[in-house]
């Protein structure tokens, strides 16, 4: 009987916790870890960006794809010849990649500022190889990947729109 009463108290706590988490989940904007977010908040920058080298000061970018029903995730990026590329480590299986393939219009957030951009899949094998090398110079651990893991990496060129 004592255990049952304790379990009832814990159940009330769990019910409140689930309700709070559900409320926060439904009203989220930013992604949380592997959970995708919705429409990103931040100051939207207008004007064309041709030199993305300022992005080097940030560690990750937040992408918002599928403008009709925003879906946002944290992604890594790489700067190569002043051009910004975002990458997917899961290849075409990644949901945000599928959304971006359907509609290349997206927004990217770097350091609290939002940029309206277009993401284009990089298909040139020589450019992909060069981007791999740039990434591996920045992060030597990436050079330890197997060719299969390497092949899973997709890159999208980011251009202002």
């Amino acid at each position: 009987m004592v255990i049952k009463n304790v379990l009832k108290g814990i159940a009330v706590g769990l019910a409140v916790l689930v309700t709070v988490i559900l409320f926060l989940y439904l009203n989220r904007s930013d992604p949380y870890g592997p959970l995708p977010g919705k429409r990103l908040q931040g100051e939207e920058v207008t004007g064309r960006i041709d030199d993305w080298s300022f992005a080097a000061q940030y560690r990750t970018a937040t992408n918002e794809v599928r403008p009709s029903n925003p879906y946002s995730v944290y992604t890594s990026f790489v700067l190569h010849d002043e051009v910004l590329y975002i990458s997917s480590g899961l290849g075409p299986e990644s949901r945000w990649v599928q959304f971006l393939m359907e509609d290349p219009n997206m927004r990217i957030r770097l350091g609290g500022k939002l940029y309206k951009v277009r993401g284009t899949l990089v298909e040139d094998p020589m450019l992909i190889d060069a981007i791999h090398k740039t990434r591996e110079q920045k992060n030597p651990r990436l050079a330890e990947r197997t060719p299969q893991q390497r092949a899973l990496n997709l890159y999208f060129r980011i251009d202002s729109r």
Partner: protein
Amino acid sequence: MRVVKVVILVVGVLAVIYGLVTRGLTVGNQVAAGGLLLFCLTSTSYFLVLPVSRDSEGKWRPNPDFAWLSIYLLVAAICVGWLYLLNR
């Protein structure tokens, strides 16, 4: 059997605490999710009733324990979904 159930409940609670202490409050905390699942499934065994049952006069009455059972089943289902998403 009673002792076994209490031991499983304690193991579940300890797993949740261990998961939170070692891995923090993160979505990828599988130890905490597993501990919570174990705790919830064991807890359901204390409240296994049908939503309604007949009383001594033969009238249908709701079983209050069904509310507690529902909460634990709901949380257990969330844990299963959570672990599935982390391991797919």
